[in-house]
């Protein structure tokens, strides 16, 4: 029977989902600030990778403890969402446990749900412990780990615990009510059945608790969904497309700029006809910067990377430059990209999470320039990179930190000629001697002199 409660629910759910859709559209717009790049190739290979890395969490298992705990939360999220579907239907139509008709399947589902919910609580408590008590270095340190990123992580973990408790409160009260009224409740509840008496036996109180638990759970989920776009927790959605569109070729292959190829070919051969440049809407040729100075010079995939980052710090914890005290932190590169994109694109979310920059960053000497380069990321950070790909390898959601570092470096060199002096010397050596050192090309074959091998008998 549809009552006022159901109408309120419908309005709340409609607003929650509507707001979320509105935020997603803004995020899409932000990502599309980036340059276009065609990543529609090899769909089957991409799907395989998505199944393995995103669904299967393959790369998480490089570190066992967090991988197992994360798996509880992840599977919990997926399975409990089936119950959320039921909650939605119950909420709209005033039904009660509408999926109960599934019989034994429903029993199993509820049992698994309860066990997972308990595991989620345990995992989240351990995660909170790791962040706030033992202070695992990659989670607690780094210039980019300012107030917001730290608070964000705690907000999510506490919300997840509250949601799980709300679910238990609903189940316990519901079970007890059913027992008092002598009717069988569909489903099996291994956890709640052990706590059946904690709320007493007053049917009025129990009905209230069941109802409050139900409402907190569903409103909590809607609020959580709308908090996601402001949060590192957005990775639960972005991980899938981001892995799908990630690089298929060997990590050592860096991008080639075809505009430069045309220029060189025209230089070497005056009869070479480069293709006509692309035109914008007004018919003016689109002149692209060499390398990246700001977010619009990066590709949409690189911007998508930054919305996928969950700030876990695996990349920074394996970065040889960071490990030896240099300024570079691959995680900061990704977080800076997101913050700058949101600054430029208009904020998509309800909160303004990019506060860490203003909090005074001791060694990172940014300027007031409104660009990613220098305004957020300094040349010193970029020049510390050894391009070793450890960050890319470590990322559980296939973010390519290195490609962004390289594009920013390219801008420094190609547009500003702002390389360190010794690097410029290396360039000159290659131009003049065909080697990065100052040796004469005519000596290149000297190594072969006086070389002997044992003669064969």
């Amino acid at each position, binding site marked *: 029977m549809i009552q006022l409660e159901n109408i309120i629910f419908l309005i709340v759910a409609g607003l929650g989902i509507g707001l979320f859709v509105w935020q997603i559209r803004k995020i899409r717009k932000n990502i599309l600030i980036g340059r276009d790049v065609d990543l529609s190739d090899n769909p089957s290979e991409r799907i395989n990778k998505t199944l393995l890395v995103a669904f299967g969490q393959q790369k998480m298992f490089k570190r066992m403890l967090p991988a197992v705990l994360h798996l509880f939360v992840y599977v919990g999220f997926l399975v409990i969402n089936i119950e959320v579907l039921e909650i939605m239907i119950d909420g709209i139509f005033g039904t009660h446990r509408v999926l109960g008709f599934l019989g034994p399947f429903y029993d199993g589902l509820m049992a698994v749900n309860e066990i997972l919910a308990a595991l989620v609580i345990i995992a989240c408590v351990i995660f909170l412990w790791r962040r706030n008590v033992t202070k695992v270095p990659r989670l607690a340190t780094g210039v980019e780990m300012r107030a917001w990123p730290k608070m964000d992580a705690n907000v999510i973990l506490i919300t997840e615990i509250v949601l799980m408790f709300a679910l238990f409160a609903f189940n316990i009260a519901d079970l007890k009510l059913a027992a008092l009224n002598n009717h069988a409740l569909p489903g099996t509840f291994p956890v709640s059945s052990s706590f059946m008496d904690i709320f007493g036996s007053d049917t009025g109180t129990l009905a209230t608790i069941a109802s409050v638990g139900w409402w907190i759970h569903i409103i909590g989920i809607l609020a959580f969904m709308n908090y996601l776009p402001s949060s590192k927790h957005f990775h639960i959605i972005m991980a899938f497309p981001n892995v799908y569109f990630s690089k298929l070729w060997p990590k050592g*292959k860096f991008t080639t700029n075809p505009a430069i*190829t045309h220029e060189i070919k025209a230089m070497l051969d005056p009869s070479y006809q480069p293709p006509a440049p692309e035109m914008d809407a007004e018919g003016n040729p689109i002149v692209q910067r060499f390398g990246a100075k700001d977010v619009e010079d990066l590709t949409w995939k690189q911007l998508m990377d930054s919305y996928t980052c969950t700030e876990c710090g695996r990349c920074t914890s394996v970065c040889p430059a960071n*490990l030896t005290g240099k300024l570079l932190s691959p995680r900061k590169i990704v977080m800076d990209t997101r913050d700058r994109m949101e600054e430029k694109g208009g904020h998509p979310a309800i909160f303004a999470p990019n506060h860490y920059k203003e909090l005074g960053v001791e060694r990172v000497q940014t300027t007031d320039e409104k660009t990613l380069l220098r305004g957020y990321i300094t040349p010193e950070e970029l020049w510390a990179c*050894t391009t070793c790909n*450890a960050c890319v390898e470590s990322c559980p959601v296939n973010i390519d930190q290195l490609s962004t570092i390289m594009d920013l470096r390219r801008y420094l060199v190609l547009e500003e000629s702002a390389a360190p002096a010794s690097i410029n010397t290396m360039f000159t050596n290659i131009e003049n001697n065909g080697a990065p050192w100052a040796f004469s090309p005519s000596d290149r074959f000297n190594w072969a002199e006086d070389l002997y091998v044992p003669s064969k008998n």
Partner: protein
Amino acid sequence: MEENKRLVKVPTMAEMAAKGEEPEVLFWVGCAGSFDDRYKRVTRAFVQILEHVGVKYAVLGTEESCTGEPAKRAGNEFLFQMQAITNIEVLNAYNVKKIVTACPHCFNTLKNEYPDLGGNYEVIHHSTFLQQLINEGKVKVQGGEAFKGKRITFHDSCYLGRANNIYEAPRDVLAALDADLVEMKRSRANGLCCGAGGAQMFKEPETGNKDINIERTEEALATLGTGDGVIATACPFCMVMMSDGVKNKEQEETVKVFDIAELIAQAEGLGK
């Protein structure tokens, strides 16, 4: 002894072309292999192996030029493409099909970055090439017992390992030596960079509290323990960085840094 050895005349592509011949494989020596005194010994060791097994090979000699790799990693795409396009003209003019190189940086660039610019070759790193020679029984490593009980740890090159997923080939080559192979804690996909990639080889490190090669050398030394040991590398930059690290730690008397080709040449009795 003198009569037991023969002088090697390293064949060039130009000479081969003049005779109307083509080699099985072009040995791309690379700049470090051509000019760096330490790495020239690796080049020579590898050529000794090629001569020993009778592979029909050639080098470009003075026609070789930098692949452009350090320029590309430093962000100078223009200079990189200039070098690449010029090199591709030379390689294509000689109708080169297959290239072997002892430098992972040259290897990566030739294999992965030249195709976009019109240079399509089968490119293999010398670790894979040596692995094949050993598997085919062409290199028997009879003197491998000389390494018995010797502790060797292999330092992964980023451009071989993570960049191209080649982890087993150099290890298989070392396994032929009968030595005691020990792995560093950070190895294979988790290997720690020597600190020279991304054109760091050509500049001072940025301000920090430690040099990367010291961090890595300390790990290697701890893995090898006390006594004689070998840090095996398969990259000219790693060779420099690890050698410098060992010197910095004043362990050069006991711990030697060798390229895998040098170890195989030694085990084959191919001499210096």
